[in-house]
């Protein structure tokens, strides 16, 4: 059992999606996260173990390597793809309640901003660490954030911005969300954003990298 879970973690860490995937070249023709997760379920390994000791373990390693500049964005995206492919097999266990996520995280790029790579990276890393992520996409109006936070009873929301003009929208969005949902925890990120700006606009957390957001959220997991 442990060996199979380690293999799953390895496939996620190195972005091996399935047997047909040509990447990584040194694993060509080998089974990937897709097939191995299916095998694990067939062997009766618990979904919680597959998630925690396989998929999440692999993504955690990628997150740390990314922070340390040992892997880069393309490799992280491949890991996320491997993870999401494997997660398809676990969907029934989430739906039945056999496996529980760590919490719900709402994310989106703020109004007026169409950029998404930073948001996508954060979204993938957080999902890959066992959270349910509701990705509202780009150019998200404040009302939409508020509506979704209320609908899903979420405790955490992440706002992304790449443009200096949409940083202004980020401030308005944070203030409006905080006014309507006082207990909410707002995370912000994006190339022009920094911790000083976070303080200025009243958000709760800023991280220059996705792993920082993961670690912040995981502090709230009991």
């Amino acid at each position, binding site marked *: 059992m442990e060996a199979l879970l380690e293999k799953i973690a390895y496939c996620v860490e190195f972005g091996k999606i399935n047997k047909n*995937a040509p990447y990584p070249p040194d694993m060509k023709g080998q089974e990937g996260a897709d097939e191995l997760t299916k095998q694990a379920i067939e062997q009766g390994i618990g979904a919680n173990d597959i998630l925690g000791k396989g998929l999440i373990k692999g993504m955690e390693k990628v997150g740390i390597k990314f922070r340390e500049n040992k892997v880069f964005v*393309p490799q992280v995206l491949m890991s996320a793809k491997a993870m999401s492919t494997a997660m398809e097999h676990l969907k029934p266990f989430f739906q039945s309640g056999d496996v529980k996520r760590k919490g719900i995280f709402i994310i989106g790029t703020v109004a007026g901003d169409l950029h998404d790579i930073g948001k996508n990276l954060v979204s993938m890393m957080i999902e890959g660490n066992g959270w349910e992520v509701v990705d509202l996409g780009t150019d998200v109006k404040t009302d939409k954030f508020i509506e979704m936070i209320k609908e899903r009873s979420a405790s955490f929301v992440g706002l992304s911005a790449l443009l200096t003009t949409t940083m202004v929208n980020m401030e308005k969005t944070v203030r409006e969300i905080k006014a309507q949902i006082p207990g909410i925890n707002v995370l912000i990120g994006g190339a022009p954003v920094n911790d000083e700006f976070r303080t200025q606009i009243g958000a709760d957390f800023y991280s220059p990298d996705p792993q920082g957001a993961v670690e912040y959220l995981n502090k709230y997991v009991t």
Partner: protein
Amino acid sequence: MELRKAGLKIKNFDNIKNWIASVIGAGLRSAMPVLTYPGLSFTGGKVRDIVTRSEVQYKCIKVLAEKYPAVARVMAMDLSVEAEAFGAHIDFNDDEIPSIKERLIHDSLMINKLEVPGIGEARTSEFLKAAKLAAENISDKPVFGCMIGPFSLAGRLFDISEMMILTLMDPENSHILIEKCTRFLKEYALAFKKCGLEGIFIAEPAAGLLSAGMCGEFSSAFVREIVDYVQDDGFMVVLHNCGNTGELVESMALTGAKGLHFGNAVDMMEILSKAPSDRLVFGNIDPVGIIKNSRPDRIKSEVKNLLKKTAGYSNFVLSSGCDIPYGTPEENIDAFFEALEEYNMK
């Protein structure tokens, strides 16, 4: 303060090769911030006007050239122009640089069918007209055109996340797409040269997301083609990369670009220790967190600290880490240049 009088007296350069030598040998520190959009506070108008009307862009460059003693000027950075020439749909905004609405190409079939546009398509003609006006009317310092790099352009056409994945899953088609982008960019850079400019600033932000090896394969190898095509004693390439690691320096230097420009995520001392001493190395005051959003005293302190740290490198030119945005207070830009002047007066 009469900033215009405070700068370096590097004038009447006969060619860019000698200009580079004069900057390195000046004995004083110099600056070339990426600065165009804040010119609107002097000329009036909106960001939309700069990116769609040549005369507005030219006036912004001109007014900033008259006010600030930059050692060279960079034209407006709008990294949607080239993608639009290929047919991408653009989202324009009064106060913000345009964005790409959606990806133009979705698969390898579309990559192979993609046609390389001619120069003058879409807004490239307006940017070239602005370049011509700048070349004709700004003669005391070099003026550099500005365009996107080949990997970043491929990302704009194919979607940047998808492009990253394509490099690993299908390197062959990645190369085909980047090669088509390069073919266009070579001619676009040449068109800037024919307008009479002294160089081209190539912004390659997406390459900063790659490892050094991948940067070499998917960006630098193609930038090298552009450099070989246009760079000579009268025209230089400045290559900008805003990645967060000094590991990219070697790959960038291999392009042959005579200027290397870095974003604010890197330590300039690490960069300078790795960069060839015969290249100009530009960087890297945070354009938003510091230049736009800080107070003048903080800007002065950051600039002086950077100048002090880099004092041992005569090939270093003070710059912003990227484009200084529209809406940056005039006093903040004043502070940037005042700090330079105060440092040089010491």
